[in-house]
């Protein structure tokens, strides 16, 4: 067992020990349920097809800015960060005084204090009772009686809403209030678009089911951090298939270098390998992530999450709102290497 395995196993044991005992089966709840007829096979197949189509639609829409598709030598991290190449505060995501803006989030209305409107709980892996907003804006004109999941505790009203209004100096003057949106999907960074398909042609017309040594490949890539960054698995014939392909990021490779790296890796580790171009090495991307984390440590910058899959996508930066001043700070890190996702967005 490796050190990482032990740390994970320890964390799991500790977490399990802290869990309350499971509930007893509620027989009354069972008794209220009736038999559900078994769905005919044809209808089941149709339903599965519809579900698959829906999942594909949701997934294709959930990678906010990546547009990479299957090609022989794609660039994994140059395909569409949200605010790339828009110098001088010209990004459509920058929020300025007087702009109309909209977001769905948490509302806190404590007696005698201005109403706060902020992103929903930014800690999805923990159950937590949030007692105050972290970041966000002051909201003027909210109707607390119309909040989604409204709760009233000792005079403090909390709930969720979608609010649209005019932003000025940290305050949103609400013009429209609606129910909170229902985000679909497990929270967390989704699979980079480049890994949703296998972005290389198979070596001899068809990928084979040959086994590969994932650890050996990882070791090799780590020994060459300036050449390689990012390693992921794709399933060219679907996730139910045993055939997998290892996708490796090659730093700033031109087509010839990409082909050379592919030959090198296939010679060492087998044919089920694919190479794609990435724009930063691992040390460079870690430096980018570190710089973004440094900004996150100052609450005034409004950043509530930094991270995402290394290698195949720019570093995710989740921020409550992107003011021109914050945009300037993030520009110093390098906008092409960041995937900035503001919570409160201007409505253009």
């Amino acid at each position, binding site marked *: 067992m*490796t*050190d*990482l395995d032990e*740390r*994970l196993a*320890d*964390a*799991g044991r*500790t977490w*399990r020990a802290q*869990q309350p*005992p*499971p*509930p*007893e*089966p*509620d*027989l009354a*709840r*069972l008794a209220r*349920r009736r*038999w*559900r007829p078994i769905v005919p096979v044809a209808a089941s197949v149709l339903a599965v097809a519809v579900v698959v189509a829906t999942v594909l639609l949701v997934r294709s829409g959930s990678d906010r800015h990546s547009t990479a598709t299957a090609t022989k030598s794609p660039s994994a991290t140059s395909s569409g960060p949200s605010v790339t190449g828009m110098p001088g505060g010209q990004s459509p995501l920058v929020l300025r005084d007087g702009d109309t803006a909209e977001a769905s989030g948490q509302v806190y209305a404590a007696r005698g204090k201005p109403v706060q409107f902020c*992103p*929903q*709980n*930014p*800690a*999805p*892996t*923990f159950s*937590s009772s949030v007692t105050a907003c*972290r970041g966000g804006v002051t909201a003027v004109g909210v109707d607390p009686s119309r909040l989604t999941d409204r709760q009233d505790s000792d005079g403090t009203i909390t709930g*969720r809403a979608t609010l649209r209004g005019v932003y000025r100096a940290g305050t949103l003057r609400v013009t429209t209030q609606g129910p909170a949106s229902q*985000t679909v999907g*497990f*929270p*967390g*960074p*989704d699979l980079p678009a480049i890994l949703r398909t296998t972005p290389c042609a198979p070596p001899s017309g068809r990928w084979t089911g040959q086994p590969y040594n*994932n*650890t050996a490949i*990882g*070791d090799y890539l*780590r020994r060459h951090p300036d050449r390689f960054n990012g*390693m*992921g698995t794709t399933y060219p014939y679907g*996730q*139910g298939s*045993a055939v997998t392909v290892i996708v490796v990021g090659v730093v700033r490779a031109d087509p010839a270098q990409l082909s050379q790296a592919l030959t090198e890796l296939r010679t060492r580790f087998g044919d089920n390998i694919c190479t794609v171009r990435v724009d930063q090495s*691992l040390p460079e991307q870690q430096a980018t992530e570190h710089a973004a984390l440094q900004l996150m440590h100052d609450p005034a910058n409004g950043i*509530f*999450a*930094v*991270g*995402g*899959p*290394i290698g195949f996508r720019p570093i995710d930066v*989740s921020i409550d709102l992107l003011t021109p001043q914050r945009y300037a700070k993030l520009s110093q890190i390098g906008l092409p290497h960041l995937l900035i996702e503001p*919570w409160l967005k201007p409505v253009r």
Partner: protein
Amino acid sequence: MDAGAPATADEFADWVRPHLAAMSRLAARFAPDADRDDVVQEAMARAWTKRRQYDPARGQPSAWLLAITADQAAKARRRSRRAPAGVPDRPAADEDARMDIERALARLTTRQRQAVDCVYFVGLTVAETAAVMGCADGTVKSTLADARNRLRTLLEVPR
């Protein structure tokens, strides 16, 4: 119903009971902001209504029940508060080590985190994890390998 799920509610409760701890842990990991016990009870109710569809030739009861629990947790999660991937606030000192891991887990892809949650936190086998994630055993293994590679970088664990 021979060898399948029991026909009476009492028998069904006895049949489910050995798997309740794992179902509860799965609900807690997959829908942390939802009412864990409600998710589990709803999963049991769903399993009860679908019990004639359980086929022991296709898998263990645990895998079938856990897959239903994962489905109910997904529904509960959509109903409850959600957020983009985030980093928890500064933890108490005695939770630092576990919190480091939780913070790192929040930076994995959805599938990677599900695999780590199932195997290390819920304590499932690879086969049970495959049932929960709706994929092959090999896919679980490769997803775990990808997750470990990413976690080694995030947690700066030497090889």
